[in-house]
C-alpha cells in the first residue's frame, strides 16, 4: 500500500518509478540501495500486519515482471530471500544513518553476489551501468543520458504494472493497511506546514547519508544522474511530504523510520527535474490507462486497475505538486471510508492512530474536497469515474463495473411485492375510463400500414379478411359447440305435439329429413322450424281430425 502512496505521489517524476524499477530489478545502483529497503520495509510492514504470506504474494506479483535483462534475476527466489535478509539486517541497524550507509554497502555486495550466483546476465547490465557511469565521469556530464531516461520511462511503466498487481493483492487481503496509509496521507498536509524544521533536520541527515552513499557508490549514482543534483538540497514540497510521512513512521516502528529515510532519498532522486520525464507524462498517462484495461498478470485482480492508473496518471498530468498531493489525499480519503470499520483491528495501526492523535493533526476543513472527492479524478478519467462505494461488488465485477445502474440503486421501499397470484378483480366490465385509455393508447400508436401485408393484417384483425388457416366454418362460431347429432337426428323433436302416425307424421318425417341435411340452419333455427309446424298442425287439429288424417 505504501507503494500506492509513493506511486501516486511521485509519478510526476519518473525518477521515482525508475528507482522502484531498479529496486525491483535488483540492480546494484545507488538508487537500488536507496529504494530497495523501502520496498523491503514495505513488505516487512505488510508482513508485520499479516504474516509472511503477503510477502510471498508480493514476490509472486513481482514474478511475472516482463523478462527484461535485469529482472530475469528477480524470479530467483533464493536471491529474494537473501536480499530480504539483508533488508532486515538493515532494519535492525536503523538508528544511525551512517550505519545505514554501511549496511547498504554490504547489501550491495550481497546483492551482487546473489546476482552473480543466480544469473549471469545480471552482471551484464551492471557492467553496462558502470560503463555508462565511467563515461559520465569522464565527461563530468551533469545531464543524464537520454537513453537511460527512455529506458527508465519504459521501465517505470512496467514497474507500475507490477505495482498494481502486488498492491491489489495486498489491498484485498488487509484493508487496515490501506486505512493506515490513509491516516498518514490525511495528516500529511498539515504536518508539512507545521513541522518544516523536522524536515530540515531530515534533510541534513539525508545529506549525510547521501554523501556517504556517494562515496561508496559514486559510479552507480552517476549512471543515474549528475551527482550535483544529488547533493543539492533542493527539496520540493513533495519531498517534504514524504519526509513527514517517514517521520511519522519513525515513531511507529523502527523499520518505518528506516524506511522513511529511504523514502526521503527516493523522493530526492525523484525531485530531480527531468525534462524528458516530464514530457513523457502525457504518454505515460495514456499508457497507464491502457494498461489498466489490460488485466494485470496477477491471478487475483482485486481492486480495479483503473483506480491505480487513474490516480497515478492524474497526479502525473497535473502540473503542480500541491495539486497532485491534494488529489492523492482525496483518493486516500475514499480508502478511509472503507477501512473505517476495520480500523481498530491492527495493533500497528492503533499505534499510528495514537501517535497521530498526539501530533494533534486535524483534518483540513476543506469543504470542497469533501463535497465531491472523486470529481477531479473523474474529470481526468474522461468522465468515466469510479464509484465511491468500492467494496466487494466493485471487486467482483472488475472492469465491467458501471458507475450507476438504472435498477441497482436502492428503492423507495414503500410497496412490498406480493408473491401471491393476483386476484382477478378486473373481471368486471371495463369502465368507460378503461376504454378511453385503451383508445388513447391505440390512437397514439396508430400507424398507417406500410405495405400490403400490414394492411392485410389490419383487415384480418378487423374481420374483413378470412382468418388463416382457411376454415369453412368461419363465422359459425356459435355452432362450434353443438355436436353433429343434434343437427342430424331430429326425430326426437317429433315426439311431442305430433301424431304418432298418419300423413302428418309422414310429412314431418320428410321435413326432419330435409332439415337434417341442411347445413345452413343453426340448430336453433331447425328447432324453430319444427316448432312452427307443431303450432300449425295443432291449430288445424280440428280440420285434420275431420278429415281423419290426424291420428294420435
Amino acid at each position, binding site marked *: 500500500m505504501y507503494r500506492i502512496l509513493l506511486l501516486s505521489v511521485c509519478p510526476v517524476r519518473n525518477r521515482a518509478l525508475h528507482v522502484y524499477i531498479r529496486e525491483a530489478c535488483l540492480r546494484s545502483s545507488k538508487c537500488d540501495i536507496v529504494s530497495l529497503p523501502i520496498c523491503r520495509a514495505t513488505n516487512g510492514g505488510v508482513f508485520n500486519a499479516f504474516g509472511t504470506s503477503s510477502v510471498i504474494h508480493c514476490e509472486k506479483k513481482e514474478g511475472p515482471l516482463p523478462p527484461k535483462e535485469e529482472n530475469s534475476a528477480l524470479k530467483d527466489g533464493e536471491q529474494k530471500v537473501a536480499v530480504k535478509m539483508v533488508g532486515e539486517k538493515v532494519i535492525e541497524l536503523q538508528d544511525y544513518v551512517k550505519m545505514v550507509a554501511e549496511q547498504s554497502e554490504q547489501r550491495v555486495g550481497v546483492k551482487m553476489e546473489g546476482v552473480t550466483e543466480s544469473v549471469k546476465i545480471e552482471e551484464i547490465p551492471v557492467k553496462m551501468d558502470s560503463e555508462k557511469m565511467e563515461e559520465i565521469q569522464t565527461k563530468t556530464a551533469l545531464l543524464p543520458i537520454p537513453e537511460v531516461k527512455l529506458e527508465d520511462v519504459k521501465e517505470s511503466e512496467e514497474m507500475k504494472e507490477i505495482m498494481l498487481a502486488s498492491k491489489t493483492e495486498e489491498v484485498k487481503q488487509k484493508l487496515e493497511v490501506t486505512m493506515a496509509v490513509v491516516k498518514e496521507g490525511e495528516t500529511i498536509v498539515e504536518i508539512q506546514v507545521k513541522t518544516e524544521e523536522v524536515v530540515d533536520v531530515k534533510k541534513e541527515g539525508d545529506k549525510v547519508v547521501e554523501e556517504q552513499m556517494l562515496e561508496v557508490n559514486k559510479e552507480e549514482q552517476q549512471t543515474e544522474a549528475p551527482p550535483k543534483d544529488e547533493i543539492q538540497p533542493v527539496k520540493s514540497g513533495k519531498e517534504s511530504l514524504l519526509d513527514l510521512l517517514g517521520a511519522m513512521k519513525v515513531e511507529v516502528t523502527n523499520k518505518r523510520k528506516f524506511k522513511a529515510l529511504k523514502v526521503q532519498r527516493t523522493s530526492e532522486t525523484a525531485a530531480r527535474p527531468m525534462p524528458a520525464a516530464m514530457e513523457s507524462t502525457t504518454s505515460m498517462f495514456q499508457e497507464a490507462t491502457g494498461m489498466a484495461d489490460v488485466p494485470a498478470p496477477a491471478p487475483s485482480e482485486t481492486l480495479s486497475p483503473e483506480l491505480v492508473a487513474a490516480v497515478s496518471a492524474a497526479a502525473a498530468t497535473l502540473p503542480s505538486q500541491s495539486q497532485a498531493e491534494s488529489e492523492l489525499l482525496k483518493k486516500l480519503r475514499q480508502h478511509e471510508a472503507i477501512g473505517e470499520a476495520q480500523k481498530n483491528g491492527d495493533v500497528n495501526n492503533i499505534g499510528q492512530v495514537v501517535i497521530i492523535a498526539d501530533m494533534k493533526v486535524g483534518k483540513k476543513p476543506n469543504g470542497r474536497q469533501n463535497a465531491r472527492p472523486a470529481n477531479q479524478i473523474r474529470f481526468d478519467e474522461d*468522465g468515466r469515474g469510479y464509484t465511491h462505494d468500492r467494496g466487494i461488488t466493485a471487486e467482483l465485477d472488475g472492469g465491467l463495473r*458501471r*458507475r*450507476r*445502474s*438504472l*435498477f*441497482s*440503486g*436502492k*428503492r*423507495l*421501499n*414503500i*410497496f*412490498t*411485492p*406480493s408473491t401471491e397470484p*393476483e386476484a382477478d378483480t378486473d373481471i368486471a366490465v371495463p*369502465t*368507460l*375510463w378503461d376504454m*378511453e*385509455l385503451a383508445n*388513447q*393508447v*391505440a390512437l*397514439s*400508436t396508430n*400507424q*398507417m*400500414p*406500410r*405495405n*400490403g*401485408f*400490414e*394492411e392485410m*393484417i389490419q383487415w384480418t384483425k*378487423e*374481420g*374483413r379478411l378470412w382468418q388463416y388457416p382457411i376454415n369453412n366454418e*368461419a*363465422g*359459425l362460431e356459435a355452432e362450434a359447440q353443438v355436436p353433429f347429432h343434434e343437427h342430424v337426428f331430429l326425430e326426437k323433436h317429433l315426439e311431442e305435439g305430433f301424431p304418432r302416425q298418419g300423413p302428418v307424421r309422414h310429412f314431418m318425417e320428410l321435413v326432419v329429413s330435409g332439415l337434417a341435411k341442411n347445413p345452413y340452419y343453426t340448430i336453433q333455427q331447425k328447432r324453430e322450424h319444427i316448432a312452427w309446424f307443431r303450432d300449425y298442425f295443432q291449430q288445424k287439429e280440428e280440420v285434420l281430425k275431420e278429415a281423419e288424417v290426424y291420428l294420435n
Partner: protein
Amino acid sequence: MHNHHFQDPTAPHYMFQDDPYLTPRTSAEFKLYSLSQESGRMAANHIVNKNPKFFQKDFAEPHIPCLMPETMELCIEEVSEAALLERIMLRKVKAAVDMYDQLLQAGTTVSPDASNDLLDLICLYGDRDPVQDDKPEAEDVAQEVQEEGRRRKGRLRRASDLVRIVWRENNNAERIFNLLPERDTRAYSALIRGMVKYGAHVKAFNTYTDMLNNRLTADVHTFNALISAAPEVRERYTEKWDLIVDLLNQMNEQKVKPNLLTFNALLKALRRCGSLARAQSLHTLSEMKAMGIAPSLASFDHVLGIFYKAASPSQGQTDILQEVMTEVAGRTFVAQDPDDVNFFSSAMRICLDTKDIEAAYKVHDLLRVGENWRMLGDSFQQSIYYGRMFNLLCMMEHIDVVLKWYKELIPSLYYPNPQGMRDLLQALDTDNRLDMIPQIWKDIRRMGHDNKSDLVDELLSLMARDKHSPEIQESFAVCALDVKSLYEQGQGARMALEWTATAMTNITSVLLAAQKKQQAWDMLKLFKTKNRVPSEELMEEFLASIKSSNDPQHAMELVQISASFCLPSTPKLAERVLQAFELSEEQKTILSELEVSTEVSE
C-alpha cells in the same frame, strides 16, 4: 416480410396512391395526401352511419361487423333505464343527464351500476358532449376552442388539445354524485379522476379526504390520478415529493397494488420536482423492478426528461441515456401508456443536445426492432425525430455517411425543412463535397424549398465561393441557370423570389467560372433592369474572363456598364482595359473620357 429492414427507401409510403402524380414530394403535400385518404374514409363512414337504412344489406358471409353502419342515433325514446344505458353507450352526455333527471322525477330508482356508468361518462368528458366532427351541436364548443386558440396563438400544433375544458363548480357530475343514495369507491374514483383530468386538482384532494372520511378505500386509478395531480397542489419541490410519498404509503396501507401507470404518473410528477427528481427517479425504477413491473417507454422517457432538462446544459449525465439504451436495447415494446410515443423523439433530442452520435444510432436501432416503429408517434413526431436525427448526422458524421442516411430517410420517411437542407449544405461544405450541390438542388426544388431565399442564397454563395474542376463548374452553371429561371418564372402560383444583389453576383460568377460568357453577360444586363449593383470583384472577374478571350468590344461594354453603375472602380477598370487590349482610337477616347469623367465626378 413486413419487416422494417426490407423497406424500400426510394418508394413513397404505402398509404399513398400508387401513382407518381399523387406521390407527395413536399411535407405540405405529404400532409395533404395522407390526410386526404383518412378524411375520405371518415367521410364515407359518416355517410354510412348517418343513413344506416341504406346500408343494411349484409353481403358478407360470415358477417363482418365493421362494414355495417354503427348506430349513432338514439333508438329508445321512452323514459327508462335502458334508454339511459343507451345514451351512455353512445356517449351522449347531455342526453344521458337529461334522461337520468327524468327518471328521478318519475320516481324510478336507477341501479347503482347505471348511475356509476353515468358518472363515469360525465367525468370522462368533463360534463361536455365529446366533440364529434359530424355534429352541428359541437359548434358552440368549437367556437370556444377557436377563442382559446386565438389566445394561444403561436403554438400552432393541435390548438384543440391545448384547450382545457375546465371542471366547473357544481357541474352535473357533482350534482349527480350528491344525489347518489350510496357513494362507493367507484363513484368517488370517477369523480376524482374527472377532477384531475379537468384541472380541479385541489378539489380532487378534498374529495379524496372526503372519501377517506367515509371509510372507503381508493382504487389504483384514483391514486394514479392523485399522484399526477400532486405537483399541482404544492409549491415547493420537497412538499410535492412528500405528498407523493404520502400517497404511495396510503396506497400500501390500503393494499392497493400499483400498476405501470402508477409509476409512470409518479415519474411524470417527478419531472416537476426539480433537484429531488434524479435520485428519486432511480429509486422509483428500482421499486418497479422490485414490484415486477417492467417499465414502458414512457417510464424511460420520464427518466430521461428528469436527467436532461432542456434548459440546463447536460452535466456529464450522458451515462443515463447510455444506461437506458443498454436497458432497452433489442427489446420490443408494446404501447401501454399514451406517453410511450414521446420516447423516441425526446431520446433523439438528448442525443442532439449532447452531440452523441453513438447513442443516436442506438436509439435508431431500437426503433428498428420488431414493432417498435409503431411507437414513433404521429407524423408530426416522426418528422421531429427524423429532423433531429438528420441534424445530428449532418453535424457529427462524415459526409458519405450523411448522404447514405440522406438517401435512406429522404423522401420516404422524412421531408426536411429548409434548416435541415442548410445543415446538409454545411456538411457538404465541411467535407469538401460541394460537387454534390447540383444534386441537392434538385432535391431542394422537389421538396419545395426553392422559394426560401436564404437557402437559395446560401447554395449560390457556396457554388460561387471556390474554384473547381471544369466539369463541376459546368454542372454548377447548369444549376445556377436553373436557379435563375426560377427567379424569372415567378409571379405564378407561388411567391416568386426577389432578386438580391448577392444572388445575382453569385450566379454570374458561377457562370463566368464555367466559361458561359453569353449567359453571364445576360446576367450583367439583368443587374441594370432589376436595379441591382454588381460588386467590384464581379467586374474584375468579368475583365479577367474577357481578357482570356481577348474581346475588346466586350471590354469596352464592360467599362461602360461599370460607369453606368457609377462604380468607384471604373477608372481603374478603364485603365486596365486601355493597357490590356488593342483598341481603336475611338474606343480609346471613350475610355479615357470615362476614366476622367468618373474621376471628376468623384
